[in-house]
């Protein structure tokens, strides 16, 4: 049926009646005079009338079913505005995630609150200090993202490692810069997959890895992190250990429940592989 020209004119009594007008009738887009003409036309055309009634029923069916979505309470994550002046954007996103996750995330939230207070008191921060705060905010966001996604059994990632090439292509496109998942088999971790997350000023990538013992580890990768390259930093958010650093405009954070030595080993491997040559 799709092969037929869909907008063929249908013969009519008065002015020529087009299929487009029948749609306009269904969608309430006709003036009252033309509407009456369409009704007269349909009264004499059972097939067309049947068709129009079906279209009306389709509209009602779609509105009724999808109306349940319209009337649901809006999920919290959609109502939190990421405000424009930095650090609040990252903090708001962090808080929203923390608020919907349980347990450990609350301690991370505490850290973010503390940082919010610290930033609010420092007016205006010197550039170096601002860079530092941005980097540590990245580490906190990475820790929250780790806590939220790593316990997921059914859907830890958006795109799985079986589609690694598609994953990398997608993240590269969304971050606007080449992104790849380091191979960590040598240090005992296999890629599970990755996802895109909202960061401080745009999208960030999260890659998730798993060890043979079921331990999970996430690499959080953000671009446009201004400031000088840094050495590895270490922080602990609840049960999550995080190594983070800045290199050539990228912010990196590696989070896991694993101990500090093991995490350092992994971080060195990631650094070695991802360092721009």
């Amino acid at each position: 049926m799709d092969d037929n020209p869909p907008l063929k004119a249908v013969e009519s009594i008065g002015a020529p009646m087009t299929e487009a007008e029948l749609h306009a009738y269904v969608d309430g887009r006709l003036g009252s005079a033309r509407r009456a003409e369409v009704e007269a036309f349909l009264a004499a055309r059972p097939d067309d009338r049947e068709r129009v009634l079906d279209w009306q029923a389709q509209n009602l069916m779609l509105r009724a079913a999808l109306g349940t979505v319209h009337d649901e309470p809006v999920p919290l994550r959609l109502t939190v505005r990421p405000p424009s002046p930095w650090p609040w954007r990252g903090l708001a996103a962090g808080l929203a995630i923390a608020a919907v996750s349980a347990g450990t995330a609350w301690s991370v939230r505490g850290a973010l609150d503390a940082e919010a207070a610290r930033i609010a008191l420092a007016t205006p921060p010197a550039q170096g200090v601002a860079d530092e705060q941005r980097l540590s905010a990245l580490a906190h966001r990475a820790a929250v993202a780790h806590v939220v996604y790593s316990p997921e059994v059914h859907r830890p990632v958006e795109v799985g490692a079986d589609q690694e090439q598609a994953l990398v292509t997608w993240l590269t496109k969304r971050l606007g810069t080449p992104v790849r998942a380091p191979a960590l088999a040598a240090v005992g971790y296999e890629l599970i997959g990755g996802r895109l997350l909202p960061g401080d000023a745009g999208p960030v990538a999260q890659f998730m890895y798993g060890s043979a013992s079921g331990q999970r580890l996430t690499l959080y990768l953000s671009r446009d992190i201004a400031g000088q390259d840094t050495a590895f930093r270490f922080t602990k958010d609840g049960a999550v250990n995080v190594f983070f650093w800045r290199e050539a405009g990228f912010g990196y954070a590696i989070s896991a429940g694993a101990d500090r030595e093991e995490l350092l080993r992994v971080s060195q491997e990631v650094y070695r592989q991802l360092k721009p040559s």
Partner: protein
Amino acid sequence: MRATDRADLLACIPSLRRYTRGLTGDGDRADDLVQDTLERAWARFSMWQRRGEVRAWLFGIMHNHFVDRLRAQRARPEDGMGDDLPEVAQRPMQGDGLALRDVDRLLQRLSPEHREVLLLVGVEELAYQEVATLLAIPLGTVMSRLSRARAQLRVELQGTADGAATNRIQRVK
């Protein structure tokens, strides 16, 4: 941004969610799409010149995101994302929940292009010209997509007339 602008944007979220749910057939993916759209909208709000209704502007942003995602999906040899989501992920709803899932499946049988037009016209009640502007396609293309979408939906509904799915859907009428 003024407080009223923020309120205008927030007021559009329910219809954005309804539309993306119809497009994607999956609550989580729908809300991801809404979130992406809002992110971009907040970032670009100052650039919006109030040339039109804020809702149409948001739907335009969403359309671009949706098309980006389709391209990304089509580039993959196989897109199984979300197909194996457990049914328990659905928000429990009395009666209507079944109809929503049936409608999800039904809509997924249409092409994304047909689905967009059908939903924008039939559910979001945008004028044909608004849809043409929003999707950046000629008015005639809007009408032919609408025609094909409705024709296909008729066939799908008649084809399963004896099925339980349709019985549930017809209960909504």
